[in-house]
């Protein structure tokens, strides 16, 4: 690790900096140094090994990539030197720089890998939505060169739908803070390709009287880790859908914590995994209700389908409650594709491959797919059925 730290120390001054930022970066590095790279002995990283994430020989990414095909021409693409965009009225999108990075809110007690990310953050954007927008805003971040560190902030002050696509062919660590002051629909699609690690920290803070829908997708052949930390203030509501799709030797780990910090708040969380080949999907979801709040409603359901004998799922729905005035449900199911349903479809002339596809699609459709735009459905469908 010492060689790693020297390497990082050498990198930091080369990043965009001013003296205050340099100091901040070094402080974060000190936190990482103190805590070290998480091992599987750390409970939260029990199922996801970072052993193969090479932090000994960090060579920072020098370039961000455009999507292979720009699905509808509406992407705002985060690039190394610029952001390609044509923004609607009332929306601003700014590239991360020394000045704005220093001003952004940051976790005061980050876990080690998050501290490392804050120490090395090199790319990122700040999106401000100040007027209601009808069309979704698509943001694309792609990397296929070395390792990259991202820090993003999204401020939703007016009604908005955002589709945030993180397509990583090489390893990346990213933090995105979303501050929600108005009704919002946020979709986060994390793809880890080949042997890449795509490690994301997503912190969402919903202020009073807001409604939010979140759809998360974890996919690709590499390792995805999404640490989702959601705060619900007074009278706020959220509905969260997650779909992890594992194939090959991929590994998708969705860690979600929903914190009810305000009274009269409600949350619904549906986490689904479809796991094929030798892939491994994890859902660890906690709903935390503080003793000072009242009239809380929470539903949490994890549904999983194993598509092969070697595929593996760990699911841990969890309620942490310090209050009586609540209504909370949670549950989990894991099974293979329903053989009776497959037979029924076959008995109506539908071939086994098509029948499986229909059942898989219906599993995804329930709660998730129907809220997606056709472009994203097609994008995901291509990813799911391209074998």
């Amino acid at each position, binding site marked *: 690790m010492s060689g790693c730290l020297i390497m990082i120390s050498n990198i930091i001054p080369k990043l965009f900096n001013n003296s205050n930022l340099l100091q901040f970066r070094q402080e974060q590095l000190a936190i990482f140094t103190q805590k070290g790279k998480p091992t599987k002995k750390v409970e939260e990283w029990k199922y996801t090994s970072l052993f193969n994430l090479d932090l000994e020989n960090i060579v920072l990414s020098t370039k961000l990539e455009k999507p292979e095909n720009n699905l509808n021409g509406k992407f705002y693409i985060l690039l190394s030197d610029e952001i390609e965009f044509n923004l609607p009225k009332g929306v601003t999108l700014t590239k991360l720089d020394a000045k704005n990075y220093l001003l952004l809110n940051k976790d005061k007690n980050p876990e080690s890998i998050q501290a490392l990310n804050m120490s090395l953050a090199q790319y990122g954007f700040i999106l401000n939505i100040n007027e209601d927008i009808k069309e979704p805003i698509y943001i694309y971040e792609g990397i296929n060169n070395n390792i990259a560190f991202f820090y993003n902030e999204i401020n939703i002050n007016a009604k908005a739908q955002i589709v945030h696509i993180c397509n990583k062919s090489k390893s990346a660590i990213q933090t995105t803070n979303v501050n929600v002051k108005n009704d919002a629909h946020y979709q986060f699609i994390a793809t880890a390709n080949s042997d890449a690690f795509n490690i994301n920290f997503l912190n969402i803070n919903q202020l009073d009287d807001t409604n939010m829908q979140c759809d998360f997708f974890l996919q690709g052949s590499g390792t995805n880790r999404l640490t989702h930390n959601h705060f619900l203030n007074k009278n706020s509501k959220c509905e969260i859908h997650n779909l992890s799709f594992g194939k090959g030797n991929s590994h998708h780990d969705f860690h979600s914590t929903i914190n009810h910090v305000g009274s009269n708040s409600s949350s619904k969380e549906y986490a689904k995994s479809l796991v094929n080949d030798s892939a491994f999907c994890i859902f660890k979801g906690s709903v935390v209700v503080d003793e000072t709040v009242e009239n809380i409603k929470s539903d949490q359901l994890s549904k999983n389908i194993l598509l092969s004998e070697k595929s593996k799922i760990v699911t841990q729905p969890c309620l942490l409650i310090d209050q009586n005035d609540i209504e909370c449900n949670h549950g989990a199911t894991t099974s293979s594709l*329903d053989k*009776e*349903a497959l*037979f*029924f*479809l*076959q*008995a*109506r*002339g*539908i*071939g*086994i491959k*098509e*029948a499986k596809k*229909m*059942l898989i*699609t*219906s*599993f*995804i*459709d*329930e709660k998730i797919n129907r809220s997606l735009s056709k472009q994203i459905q097609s994008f995901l469908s291509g990813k799911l059925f391209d074998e």
Partner: protein
Amino acid sequence: MLDIKNLKVSVEEKEIIHGLNLNIKPGEVHAIMGPNGSGKSTLTNVLSGKEGYTISGDAKFLGENLLELAPEERARKGLFTAFQYPVELPGVSNVSFLKASMNSVLQANNKDLIDAADFLHLVKLKAKKLQISEDFLYRNVNEGFSGGEKKRNEMLQMLMLEPKLNVLDETDSGLDIDALKIVANSVNSLRSNERSFIIITHYQRLLDYIKPDFVHVLYYGKIVKSGTYELALELEEKGYEWLSNYDK
């Protein structure tokens, strides 16, 4: 149409059907009646290609070895089974399922696929015949349906696919009188010289509306008696107890 010879079926080494013989010609309607546990549903499952059975004997469907075909191949060749307990398909709408089913059968028979507009026109027409409301078509297959609605949905699938051989496994169970008539009418509307039916039932009442050409009594895995509609009346009067003279 269907020629079954010496069919023996076992589940986990227990023989359920002991050498069944049945010959069905095009245009014929055969009723198979029998008490609980006589092997009626096992016969249905074996004909439709469900896994989990050890089978010997011979079953030819339109001259082909039925037992060697996958379930979808049987369906594409014109075999239809209306199941006693149709499964629910959450997330799969009735219309998308029916269209996929129809087009799979059409494609396998080298026919033009049906386009969306023609399909919708046709399915609405057939649904009306079964007194099925339009919103029913857009609901997920059998999800939250009553027992009667599930059976009518099976009939809708049959009317859409217009199969050559139709096996109705206790389609009358759980139906009220009106629904029973609707099911019977849909079967009768499909009757033709080229199309055959196997009606599996406990009771004679469905046969009041669908007059079978032949009635067979399945008792402990064997057809122990065959006759005409009058046999169904006799069974209704005497019950199945009098069959205990036959070897189990």
